């Protein structure tokens, strides 16, 4: 584990990162990092000054027999003014730098590529202009991307550390964020606002495509329903559209019941009755998840009405059928 980490650190170093910061991978990141370094060195200087003086005084003026404390002035206006005004100047510099960076972070260029983001407990949905939805964020390199975001339930927050971007998703309103990726690769995306049980699993990957490859990927990805057998397409949907956050396919329970081997079985419900897990029950559970909740599980699943097409629901049903 440690060697793994050490090598990744070295790797990071070689690409412009540091102990404190991962390699900057968006256009705004270097600017945020330079402000971070500025504050870091100012802080380091003052910290060294304070602790240095403290240690010096403790050593030099420690109590000895027969040595009295010396009388010094009880205040000194010049000194006090100096250590008030110098920090004021420094924080004004930091403040202004912070504001300038912030304005860049918040105001996207006009020609940005727009992706709609929906956060819900506990997964992400990124919708591209052609209507295709993914649970990972794919973006082209070197193109400003604007995220128009909302939440379906509670407040979430989209956070991509490598891009130094973070913005809350608030229900019933739209918030915006933007970035322009500068290096191809895969980065982590987190939910940064606490949102309940699976908050720490509400993560995704950001895949930055080389220039020109993004369109091809989107074209390919959008047509998966036509090109694959339904069960395989269902597996893809299961992974991409958030089912996987709460439902396993290995028989263990998470927030929701496992999909393994349930098709065709009788299952008890929370209200005491039983239900046969068939096509209709699965379809109903996707569209109206709170009507028939399995016994032993909390009624927390959000509805997917309007988010999954009929063909997609059928594919998911085929996938669940295939899990013997």
């Amino acid at each position, binding site marked *: *584990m440690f060697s793994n980490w050490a090598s990744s650190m070295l790797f990071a170093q070689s690409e412009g990162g540091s102990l*404190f*910061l*991962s390699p900057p991978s968006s256009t*705004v990141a270097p600017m*945020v990092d330079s*402000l*971070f370094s500025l*504050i870091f060195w100012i*802080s380091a200087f*003052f910290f060294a000054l*304070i602790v240095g*003086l*403290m240690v010096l*005084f*403790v050593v030099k*003026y420690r*109590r*000895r027999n027969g040595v*009295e*404390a010396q009388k*010094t*002035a*009880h*205040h000194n206006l010049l*000194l*006090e003014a100096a*250590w008030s005004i110098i*920090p004021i100047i420094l*924080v*004004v510099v930091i*403040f202004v730098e*912070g*504001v300038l*960076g*912030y304005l*860049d*972070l918040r105001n996207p260029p006009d020609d940005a590529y727009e992706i709609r983001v929906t956060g819900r407990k506990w997964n992400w949905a990124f919708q591209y202009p052609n209507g295709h939805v993914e649970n990972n964020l794919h973006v082209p390199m070197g193109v400003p991307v604007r995220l128009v975001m909302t939440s379906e*339930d509670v*407040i979430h*927050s989209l*956070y991509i*550390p490598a891009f*130094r*971007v*973070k913005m*809350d998703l*608030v*229900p019933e*309103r739209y*918030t915006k964020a933007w970035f322009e990726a500068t290096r191809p690769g895969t980065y*982590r995306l*987190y939910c*940064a606002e*606490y*949102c*309940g049980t699976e*908050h*720490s*699993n509400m993560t995704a990957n950001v895949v930055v495509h080389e220039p020109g490859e993004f369109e091809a990927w989107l074209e390919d990805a959008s047509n998966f329903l036509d090109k694959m057998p339904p069960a395989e397409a269902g597996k893809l949907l299961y992974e991409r559209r958030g089912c996987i956050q709460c439902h396993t396919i290995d028989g263990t329970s998470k927030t929701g019941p496992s999909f393994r081997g349930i098709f065709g079985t009788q299952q008890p419900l929370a209200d005491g009755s039983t239900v046969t897990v068939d096509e209709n029950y699965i379809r109903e559970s996707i569209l109206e998840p709170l009507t028939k909740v399995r016994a032993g599980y909390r009624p927390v699943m959000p509805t997917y009405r309007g988010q999954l097409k009929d063909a997609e629901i059928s594919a998911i049903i085929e996938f669940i059928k295939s899990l013997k």
Partner: protein
Amino acid sequence: MSATVATQSAPHPQADAPTNYLTVTRGWRSWAFTLDHKRIGVMYLVAVLSAFLLGGIMALILRMELVTPTRLFLSEDLYNHMFTLHGAVMTFLFIIPSIPAALGNFLLPIMLGAKDLAFPRLNLASFYLWVAGAIFFLLAIVLGGLDTGWTFYTPYSTTTNTSVVTATIGAFVLGFSSIFTGLNFIATINTMRPPGMTWFRMPLFLWALYATSIIQVLATPVLGITLVLLAAERVLGIGVFDPKLGGDPVLFQHFFWFYSHPAVYIMILPAMGVISEVVSVFSRKHIFGYRFIAYSSIAIALLGFLVWGHHMFTSGQSQRAAIIFSGLTFSVSIPSAIKVFNWLTTMYKGSIWLATPMCYALAFIFLFGIGGLTGLFLGALATDVHLHDTYFVVAHFHYVMMGGTLIAFLAGLHYWWPKMFGRMYHEGWAQLACFIVFVGLNLTFFPQFIMGSRGMPRRYARYDAEFQPFHVMSTTGALLLGVGLVICALVLWQSLRRGRKAPANPWGGATLEWHCASPPPLENFAVAPTVGDPYDFDGLVYKGEEEGYVFEPKKQPAKREAEPEPATV
């Protein structure tokens, strides 16, 4: 009040007649219904330390779970409950009342030269409100737990199926406990100062408590109404914070932080007050820049009301609001910086005695230095967007709350322990505990800065493997910190049983509490004390047979100074 005659031999008669506040009456009723501020202070001390123990155990459980990126022994839900209660217990039950309610209650009237607080019955009521609030918190744990985070953000808190209302009632009741304590302190300082105790002869600890009390009275009611609205939202569905009914969840954040940011200063200002006392006494130097420190307490208290929006830079508030809040936030950093420089200058050319309280004070300057300076990263807008809600923030406020408030609380506890209980503790062991706590704190929280700025979000039960080394370091530090605190507790406990009797003035302090016996008699002063400069150590002479300091007026015979002079400039 009749003219005071300075016969500063108070300790002697009391040494023979041991009726102090601890022994004057007996039986549990004499404690449960006491109106004596000292006994109430001691009850608070026991209460907040129990809360600290509870919160600390939860912290250790959390840290153990975080040793591995995947599940070790806590489910996600249990982890969420645990960090919520850790935060709520530590904030509402421990840190906010720690220094003001426990140490402040005990010391404020004595340091002022008064017999008691202005409203003794209200003071007892405050304590029982604390107890009631604590009971509600415990009830919340039993009745379904609490998984909202201590911040109760809507709409999560209005939709989760845990016992939010019970916890809300608890926090509401605790709020009133805090308000009444603040009200009592302000009234006491304003109207009960004896002749000669002018504003600028008050010890800086009292200035700090005064500033704290202002915040408690002005900010806490806003938390109260916020919690009422939150409870009404959950019980009735009034929709004010519920976006589904047309409400605004971000308004809740504004309301919450309007209290909770000033609350940060409720936590840190008294700590700064303690440090001002300790640094001066153990350097045997007049505090440097008395008025600057006093005014900066008030300045921090007032400016603290204007900066709540810096908790919400990523919430979608307008860019103009964010810029204004960022600017105001930096304005608070200046008075804090001034205090640190003042303490350093106080040590300059002093006679520094590295007794346990001073060790804690030095640790405070180190740790608060880091906590304060890392605040700059979070006040600056561009960096805050990146660091908000990551472990960087967690590390920052733990450096301020633990490295600042807890360490100052321990400094104050060790400083006033002989006064409170009349016993001396073992110096060597106490210093060892201080050292282990100091190392443990740094080892726990410094790695969190690194993983935070590398992108580790807070409140995560599971995490990416790349962060594991930092988490392992942090957990190791937490265990070390735990060991240090246990040693500290054992040392103090041992002193109660076996410690040698404390003299009236073991450290050579010049404030009024050192003029009365250890422990103090029921009404504090056998003879009304002379009020002088609280930081003038000239007349204090060490007496071997007393094992402490005795006031020997050598320059001038006893006289009551009619016109006070704040400082010999």
